[in-house]
């Protein structure tokens, strides 16, 4: 890559270049640093004036409040006024819920997406508008669908259930699954399946035994990508549940106390932990991020 691109663009002097890069890195990292730093601050330092960039008395109290209901109760009684127990009981439940919902929705979305992508790319089913129908789902503001969904879900008794969220997440990530996997399938020559069929395989077998193993990496990347979307989702979690099913994003948003406003430190601790899996997965599929976020249009 180095030689290919050298001297392509107007170049800055070396020092200026380094300064610009470092500045960009600092700006990109600063809010994350603040989140991390706040998560280790004791109550007095959450909003101290002037703000402490690094905790003066670092503590694990916030993490204890997140994970141990006992610590949360003690904290609520002594410092935070009326901390809502229902949401701040323990983050384990939220992590469990998010893990179950995000994983199930990811599996559904990727399996249904792979099948549909295969049909779209090999049989050209429904012409091109068929694939675009799914893409348009992504263009709808989800809130426009949420209002009738709340109505529909309460009729089907899906409100505040894992299944309800799973269905919503699956439908809204299907466009990514279909378009991303389709772009991987189209990189595999059709002739390979043709050869397999000449050797006596059915089309389904040819797909399962020839094409699918070849795009395994792509499907896995798609799955991780969709998982990230599901894990970070907030709007559906907020509107389609009412206290029983609590995802990590809801848990973060709910650390608010009536008397002292937002519980910065606790939110930061919860935020730090809930972001870690996303960052890990994100870097794992870094080379596929571009393809995923552009629905397969741009490849690295």
């Amino acid at each position, binding site marked *: 890559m180095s030689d290919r691109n050298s001297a*392509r663009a107007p170049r800055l002097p070396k020092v200026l270049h380094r300064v610009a890069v470092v500045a960009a890195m600092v700006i990109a990292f600063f809010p994350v640093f603040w989140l991390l730093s706040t998560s280790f601050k004791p109550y007095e330092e959450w909003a101290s004036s002037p703000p402490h960039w690094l905790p003066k008395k670092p503590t694990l109290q916030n993490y204890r409040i997140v994970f141990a209901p006992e610590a949360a109760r003690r904290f609520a009684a002594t410092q935070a006024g009326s901390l809502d127990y229902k949401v701040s009981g323990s983050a384990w439940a939220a992590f469990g819920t998010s893990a179950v919902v995000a994983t199930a929705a990811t599996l559904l979305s990727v399996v249904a997406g792979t099948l549909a992508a295969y049909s779209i790319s090999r049989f050209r089913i429904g012409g091109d508008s068929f694939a675009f129908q799914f893409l348009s789902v992504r263009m709808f*503001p989800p809130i426009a669908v949420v209002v009738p969904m709340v109505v529909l879900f309460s009729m089907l008794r899906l409100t505040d259930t894992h299944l309800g969220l799973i269905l919503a997440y699956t439908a809204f990530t299907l466009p990514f699954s*279909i378009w991303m996997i389709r772009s991987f399938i189209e990189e595999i020559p059709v002739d390979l399946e043709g050869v397999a069929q000449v050797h006596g395989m059915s089309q389904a077998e040819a797909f399962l035994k020839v094409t699918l193993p070849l795009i395994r990496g792509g499907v896995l990347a798609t799955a991780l990508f969709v998982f990230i979307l599901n894990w970070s989702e*907030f709007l559906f979690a907020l509107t389609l549940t009412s206290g029983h099913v609590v995802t990590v994003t809801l848990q973060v948003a709910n650390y608010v106390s009536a008397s002292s406003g937002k519980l910065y430190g606790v939110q*930061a601790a919860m935020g730090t932990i809930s972001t870690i899996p*996303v960052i890990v997965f994100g870097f794992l599929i870094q080379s596929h991020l571009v393809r995923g976020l552009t629905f397969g249009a*741009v490849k690295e």
Partner: protein
Amino acid sequence: MERRDTVQLGTQCRRLLRIARLPFSIVLVLPAQLITLLVVVVPTIIVVWLSLTDWQPTDNIPWFKAEFSWFWNFYDLLSDERFVGAVLRTLFVVTLCVSTELVLAVALALLFLDEWPWRKVAVSVIILPMMVVPVDAANAFFMLFNDHGPINQLLSLVLDRPVEYAWLADPHWALLPIIFAEVWQWTPLMFLLVLTAFLNVPRNQWRAALGLGATPAQAFFRVVLPLSLPVMLVAVLIRAIETFKIFDVIYILTRGGPGATTESISMYMYNGAFVYFRMGYVAAAALLVLFVVVSVCLALFKPLQKHYE
């Protein structure tokens, strides 16, 4: 036992399919299509019905028994300053955010064309924001723009006088932290796309330009930039669509306040449906927005399709 059940279920499914004589190609898309039908298409039909009523869940009657008010909702919406304000504000935020992101992304991408030590590390740090859970990013910005936060602290240093400005409580400036958060989180995506586009321009093209006597700047503006335009267009479109839906950041930072001064379309509809419980009215708003989105989609359909082919 369970296993036999599954096997039986499998045979039954196959028999059903044989009876229905569905071709393999259709069977493959059925799961995706059914889920989309249930979660997107059926609600869209309900939204049409609701939009013609004045139904509120607090009325204690089921939605399908609500009295029709026909097109009054739409009439009211168009003269509803808060709705019109939210629409205009959303368009403003989209334009401002996406253009800022694009300019920053091009500038950043220019820094990364050459190979230099630690380049990979720098890219990883710079794309970190887009991986942060949006709700957490919003919380971080809430703390940064706090009246005792580091932004005010830096401003006091620069201005040499104490600044304890409550950004999020000011009707004129509350939108600024929201835009900062959005730009911070999504410039990396734009940067990755623009960088990919730049690096994909064949080397001999700009070589030829340089060989013909162009300065590096000319070669960049006349060769590399035009060739990267399609990808940049896709990037802008995708970001515009996503920013149009902006919700998480606003919900965490201001919930549309103070007053309604930071309400986006999504925030407006959320407040209408879940704070004021005016389901019928919000359904009408949703329908209007869907109508606009669908027309834009149809308008974009041809050019986009050409790019994906």
